[in-house]
Structures are given as structure tokens and as C-alpha cells.
């Protein structure tokens, strides 16, 4: 969403970067937010073709991959970018799906093979554990409407971030034990909060959570901080402020709304 009502929290779609103390990077999802990150990365080793970046995809719905064709580190020879994600539900392979995104009808890039950087696509199976430079990653599958997405628990420098976006639990008051386990004692829980609690009843079954779902998971898992995430395109800055206020009033867990371009020391 673009415009005056979306300036503070931001209007780009999903993308989160993690940086270890030693400078190793990890990106989760490639929404349009990745185009903003790309501008910064081009001023670093990625501009010189010496960048290394693993990217974890939660799933391949457009709002999580639409930054891919415009993520400039892909256009610099020498960069090594590794995309990891599960085989898309109801589709072909992960590589086939991303190839289809860059098919000549949709994109002049005309295929992954025309990206100058070295790009590898690794299909993972949720449940699998992944060792990446500087980060240890656990994965699970979580329900998202008629399909499922991959959630991640990422540990680096002894700190843990759990990413549970695009998730809707069948029973809001009893989130999946696997999700609670994934967020166990996490220093930061990033959770789908697409809907304000009072809007949720109309949108049940669409695959997204109301703000209070993140609270339930945070409280039961002992997560130390909760970031409300994946805001609805209809949620203006003021509406998000109100959701944060109402949510904070109901829990002892510190709650904030993820804002574009904000940095957080975990």
C-alpha cells in the first residue's frame, strides 16, 4: 500500500533481514520490501559481486516473492544467493514456481538462468533443520487457509527469532503445540496479525491471524517480545497504533507492530 496513511509502518510487502554479529545475513521472504533492502546491499559487498545470502521463503504467494525480479543483488555476477523453501502446495517444484514467476509473459528477465548472480534453489521439507553460516534454523509447516506455509525458528549469536507469518490456527485459543514449541523462549516472535481482533470473525478461514493469536502463542511459549506482522493492506498507521494499544493492554508480553525500515537489536 502506498500513500500518506501508510508512512510510519510502511506499505511494502513481506521481507525481514537478520544480521549476525559477525555480519552474516539471512533474509526471510522476498516481498517488495526486499527492493528497499537491495538498495542498501548494493552499497556493500553485494555491489561488488562478493555477497553471500541465504533467503528463506515461507511460501510463494505473490506478496512474499514479488520483490524477486527487482532485487538488484541478483543482477551482479559473483553474488551467491541461495533460496530455500518448501515445495509449493498444489504446484510443481519450488524452482518451477519461481521460473514461472519469471516466465517471459510476466517478466522480461525470462527465467532464473538470466540472473547474473549464482542462484541456487533448495527445496526443504518442513521439520528439517538447516545449518546456515551464522544461523541454525528449525522449520515446521503451519496451516494457512487451504494450504500451509513454512515457519522458522532461527538462532544466531545465542539469540532466537521465530517467524510465524501467514498462519491461522484452527482453534485460536489452542494454537498448535508445534507452533508454541517453535517459539519456545524466543527472544523475538514475529507473528501474523493481519486482522484486528474485531475484524476477524468476518475473515475466519482466510489463512491469517488476528492480533490476539500472536499473544496466545507468545504467552504459552515464553517468547520475550512480540512483533505484530503482515499488516492488512487496509490497515492505516492509525489503525495499527490502535491494535498495538489494545493488544498491549491485554498481555504482559511487550508488543509492538513491525515497521518498515526499523532495526531491532535482539
Amino acid at each position, binding site marked *: *500500500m*502506498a*500513500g*500518506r*496513511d*501508510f*508512512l510510519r509502518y*510502511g*506499505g*511494502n510487502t513481506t521481507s525481514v533481514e537478520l544480521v549476525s554479529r559477525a555480519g552474516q545475513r539471512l533474509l526471510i521472504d522476498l516481498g*517488495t520490501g526486499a*527492493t528497499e533492502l537491495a538498495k542498501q546491499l548494493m552499497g556493500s559487498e553485494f555491489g561488488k559481486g562478493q555477497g553471500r545470502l541465504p533467503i528463506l521463503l515461507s511460501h*510463494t*504467494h*505473490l506478496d512474499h516473492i*514479488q*520483490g524477486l*525480479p*527487482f532485487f538488484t543483488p541478483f543482477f551482479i555476477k559473483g553474488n551467491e544467493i541461495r533460496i530455500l523453501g518448501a515445495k*509449493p*502446495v*498444489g*504446484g*510443481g517444484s519450488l524452482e518451477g*514456481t519461481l521460473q*514461472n*514467476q519469471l*516466465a*517471459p*509473459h*510476466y*517478466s*522480461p*528477465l*525470462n*527465467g532464473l538462468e*538470466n540472473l547474473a548472480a549464482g542462484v541456487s534453489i533448495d527445496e526443504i521439507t518442513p521439520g528439517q533443520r538447516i545449518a546456515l553460516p551464522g544461523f541454525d534454523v528449525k522449520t515446521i509447516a503451519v496451516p494457512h*487457509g*487451504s*494450504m500451509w506455509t513454512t515457519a522458522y525458528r532461527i538462532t544466531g549469536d545465542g539469540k532466537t527469532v521465530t517467524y510465524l507469518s501467514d498462519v491461522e490456527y484452527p482453534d485460536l485459543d489452542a494454537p498448535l503445540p508445534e507452533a508454541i514449541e517453535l517459539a519456545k523462549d524466543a527472544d523475538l516472535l514475529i507473528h501474523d496479525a493481519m486482522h484486528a481482533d474485531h475484524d476477524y470473525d468476518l475473515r475466519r478461514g*482466510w*489463512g491469517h491471524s488476528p492480533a490476539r493469536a500472536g499473544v496466545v502463542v507468545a504467552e504459552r511459549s515464553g517468547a520475550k517480545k512480540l512483533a505484530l506482522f503482515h499488516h492488512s*493492506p487496509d490497515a492505516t498507521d492509525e489503525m495499527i497504533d490502535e491494535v498495538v494499544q489494545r493488544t498491549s493492554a491485554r498481555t504482559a508480553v511487550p508488543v509492538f507492530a513491525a515497521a*518498515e525500515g526499523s532495526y531491532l537489536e535482539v
Partner: protein
Amino acid sequence: MQITFWGVRGSYPVPGAATVRYGGQTSCVEARSAKGDCLIVDAGTGLRALGNKLMREATGPQRYDVLLSHVHWDHIQGLPFFSPAYVPGTRIAVHALLTAADELQQVIGGITRHEFFPMPLEAVPAQFDFHQVEPGVEFDLSAFHITPIALNHPFGSVGYRIDCDGASWAYIADTAPFDQVIHKQHFLSGPEPLSADDKVSLVAMREALVRRLDGVDTVVYDTHFLPEEYARFPHYGHSTPDQALEICAEAKVRRLVLYHHAPSHGDDQMDQIAATYLAAGAAIGIEVLTSFEGMTLPIGGEFSGPERTNPGIGPGNGRA
């Protein structure tokens, strides 16, 4: 007739403080006849807000016509978020260039494949029809008479001349100029040498464009690049305002609207571009306007200047 701009960007949407005045949504323009017929040109992210407005106006299921210039993401990614598509009984007719052997339905259906969007096209409540357009083959949609025009863009693209209520405008996006590069159906990593046939094709394409634009009141043109940017990326399939002015001058066009702005051009730079080309156009008798999200333009009759559909947006807003 009047037209309203719902998305003026190329490539990808750019929200944020740098784009509040000109807007950050991708390509989408709405045309309205005097008696209220609606025609949608391109379905970028601007389509979402247009759809929400149409929902507020509609009293029941409707029929909407959507002309697509081509199917690159920035021209179609609003479709899954077009709320009238979720109204049973509504019919949405999509008109586009059929390229290569693929069926348009497959291409549009591909956007809503399960990997990209939760609902497959067959499950969307509105009924979608697909119609092939061919350059030079004219047709009518409600009050509008439409002439598709071949353009120079990777994998093919068409512009449209649209006549209605005794007036005319044209939508010329996306296109490269017609000299240095010819776009076909393969990946270009840079300009390639032109064969004799290529040169003949480019001349013919340019002549046909100028002929079709002859005497058109208002031309909306892909002016993604500034000249220095074009010099670096001549193979990206976009034009500069100077190239658009040259075509409009030859076709005796009265008014040129700069459109499909590069995502990197923030509001302040857009102000400069607008001022520079307003002057350049005035010098040769062409009025040059720079499109912004929410701009409504009357087409035909005496020119009465742009209006703001969205009072929060527009080049003058937010400045002293």
C-alpha cells in the same frame, strides 16, 4: 469522456515518504464516457483502489472491460485484489495481445495458480472472459471505439487509441523507441545488432503508431526513463519524455501525459521532470502533464486542467 489515473508507476509498487504526492501504485487508468460507461486500462496495483471505488458505486453484478497492454507483473498484479471479481454474477472481460502459442486464459489463470494466490481463477465468483486483440483491428466496447497499436517491448505489447464522445486519447505503454533496439521474444542482456529486416520492422511500427495517434487529443506515454537512464538501459523496453514528445509532435497531438514513472523517481525529482518537460512541450506547442495517482483529466472540449480525485495526493500537496 474523462480518464483517471489509479497507478502511474512502472516495474513495482513504491510506497513511502518519497512517493506520497505522485503515488506509488503500478499502472492502471480508468476511462469514463459521458454517460458513465467504464473502461479499465491495465491492472497493476492501482486496480485495487479502483475496484474498491467501483464496489461502492455498484448496485449489483456488473460487466467490466479491462484492456491489457501486456502481462508483465506491474500491469496485472492488481487483478487478484480487484474486489468486483468476488461478486457472483459480475462479468470481467479481459482484452489482450495473444503472444506466442500461449492462451491468454492460461497466462491470467497463472497469476492465481495455487503457488501465487490462494484462489484459482476457476473458483473466483465473477465470470472471466478472454479476448484476443490484434494491432490495427478495431473494435467497440460499450461507448468506446478501440484501436490496438503494436509497440516495441519484450515479448510484445499493445497501445490503445480510444475514441468516445467525439474525443480521443491514447494509452502508449510500455514501449521502447523505434531505433536502437527491437524487442522480440527472447531475453536481451544488452542491445543486439539490428538486421535489415529489423530496421524495416521498426520503421513500420513507428509509422503505424504516428498514423494512429494523428490528431489524438491526449496521449498517455511510457516515459519511464530520463535520457541518461535510457542511455544505460536501452534494452529495457521503455522510453524517455523526449522520445514521446518527438512522436507526439509528428502526430500533431495536443497534450502529452508522462506516465509509467520509474520507481526510483521520488516526488522532488518528479517535480523537476514535470517542470522540465512542461517547458520543452510548450516550446513546440504541446501541453505536457505529469500523471499522478488520483489525477482526473477531461478529454476533448476545451482543456480545463487536471482535477484531483484523491485530495491527499497530487504534486502540489504537502508543499508550502
